[in-house]
C-alpha cells in the first residue's frame, strides 16, 4: 500500500497527514505504533531507541466495564508509581483535558467528545515521545469536532515531542499542524509548512488543489 514513502517528522512539531481514503494514512500510523509490520523499510525515532508512543484512535477504545480512572491507570502500568501518585497523575490529567472530577464515571456515561478527551488523556499519560492521532475527531459531530479542535490547540504544549495527525479535513490540519504532508500513490506527494499568521484560507486552497491533483482519478472513473 505504502511504497517509497519518506517522511521526516520534526521533533516538537505537529505533522498532519492528509490523503484520500485508502491512501495508507492509517497504515502509516499503525506501522509507527508497531501494530502492523512493514515488508521493508525503517522507522527510526532519532536518538530514542525505545520510544514511548501514545495513540488515539478514531474510536475512544475505553474499556466499558472500567471507570475512567481505571481506564487511564492502564497507561501507567509501565511507569511504576505508588497508588497515590498514580491517582494524583490521573486526576491532574483528567483536569487538563477538561474531565476534572469525572474519574468515577463509566464510558457509557460520557458523550462522544468526552470519551475522546479521555482517550487523549490516556495517550498523554504515557508522556509520549511520539503522539499518533488517527483521525481522532473523525467520529464526532461537526460542533463537537470544532470544539475539540480548539481543545487540541490548547493542549498542544502537552503533546510530547512529536505528533502525527492523520485527518480527512484540510481545515483541521491547517489549524493544528506545523507541517502538512499529502500522501498519494503510497508516497508523500507534497509537503506544506504552516506559518503562523499566514493566510489560512489561501493555504487550504493550495492544499486542496494539490490533493485533487493527486487524486486517484484512474480508479475514480
Amino acid at each position, binding site marked *: 500500500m505504502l511504497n517509497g514513502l519518506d517522511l521526516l517528522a520534526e521533533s516538537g512539531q505537529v505533522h498532519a497527514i492528509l490523503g484520500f481514503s485508502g491512501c495508507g494514512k492509517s497504515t502509516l500510523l499503525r506501522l509507527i*505504533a*508497531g*501494530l502492523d509490520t512493514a515488508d521493508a523499510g525503517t522507522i527510526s525515532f532519532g536518538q530514542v531507541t525505545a520510544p514511548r*508512543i*501514545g*495513540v488515539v*484512535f478514531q*474510536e*475512544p*477504545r*475505553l*474499556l*466499558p*466495564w*472500567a471507570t475512567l480512572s481505571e481506564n487511564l491507570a*492502564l*497507561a501507567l*502500568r*509501565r511507569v511504576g508509581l505508588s497508588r497515590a501518585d498514580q491517582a494524583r497523575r490521573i486526576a491532574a490529567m483528567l483536569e487538563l483535558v477538561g474531565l476534572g472530577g469525572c474519574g468515577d464515571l*463509566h*464510558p*457509557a*456515561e460520557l458523550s462522544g467528545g468526552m470519551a475522546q478527551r479521555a482517550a487523549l488523556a*490516556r495517550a498523554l499519560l*504515557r508522556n509520549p515521545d511520539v503522539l499518533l492521532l488517527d483521525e481522532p475527531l473523525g467520529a464526532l459531530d461537526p460542533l463537537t469536532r470544532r470544539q475539540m479542535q480548539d481543545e487540541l490547540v490548547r493542549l498542544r504544549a502537552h503533546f510530547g515531542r512529536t505528533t502525527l495527525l492523520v485527518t480527512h479535513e484540510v481545515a483541521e490540519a491547517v489549524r493544528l499542524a506545523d507541517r502538512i504532508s499529502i500522501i498519494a500513490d503510497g508516497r508523500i506527494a507534497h509537503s506544506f509548512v504552516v506559518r503562523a499568521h499566514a493566510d489560512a484560507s489561501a493555504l487550504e486552497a493550495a492544499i486542496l488543489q494539490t490533493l485533487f491533483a493527486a487524486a486517484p482519478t484512474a480508479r475514480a472513473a
Partner: protein
Amino acid sequence: MDARAKSVVTDDPLWLRLLTAAAVPLAVLCAWEIAARAGWLNVYLLPAPTAVLRAGAELARSGELARDVGASVQRVLVGFVLAIVTAVPVAVLVQRCRTAEKLLRFPLNFVRATAPLALLPLLVLWCGIGEATKWAVILLVGFFPILLNTVAGLQSVRPQWLEMARTLDLTPLERVRFVIVPAAMPVFVAGLRLAFGNCWRALVGAELIATSVGLGYLIMDAQAIARTDMVYAGILVIGTLGFAADRAFVRLTRGLAGGGDALAED
C-alpha cells in the same frame, strides 16, 4: 446504568414482591391441605403438605437429611469443578486455534447431542459403580454450557481493545487480566449458572446407580419403603437448594458484570 437496571426490579416494596411470588404456591398448598384432610385425595399419592413437612422434620432430626444433602452437594461440586477445569481449557484452545476448532467441532457436537443418562451404562462399565460415575454424569451435563459460554465470552473481546492494550505496552498477562477476563466474564458466569443448574438437576439421575447416600438415593429409598411423604420432602429439598444456588449465581453475576452492558458501547 446500574440504577436503571435495579429500578425495574425494585419498583414494588419487598413484602409485596414476596407476596406476589408466594401467592400462587400458597393458594395451591392450602387447597391441597384442605383436600387431603377432607379425604378427597389419595394421601398415599398426594400426602398433605403438613405431612411432607413432618417427614422432612423427621429426616432432619435423624441426621439422615444432613448426610444426604452433604453427599449430594459434594458430588455436584466435584462434578461442577471438573466441568470447569476441563471445559475452560478446551474453550480457550478452540477459540485460539482454528485447526483445533475444526477438528473438535464435530466430536464435541456429537457428544453434546448424546444424553448423559444414555451414557450411564457405559460410564458404569468404565468408572465402576463408585463416586467416579456420578462425577462423570455431572461433569458431562455441566461441560457444554461452560464450554459454549466461555467461547462466546472470549469472542466478545473486541480486537480494538486488545490493540489499545498493545499501544499501552501491556504484557500478555496484563491483557488477559485487564481486558480478556473482564470482557468475557459476564457471559462466562452466565454459563456457570446454566451449568450448575444442569448439574444439580442431573444429580438424581447420577444417584440412581448403586448409592446408599444422597438426595437421589433418599427419594428412591423412600419410594421403595412406600413413604411418599419422604419422597416429597426430598424433592422439596432438592428444589429449594437448586433455587438457592441459582439465586446465588444471579448475585454473583451482578457483582462481576459491573460493566454489565459491556457489549453495548465502544
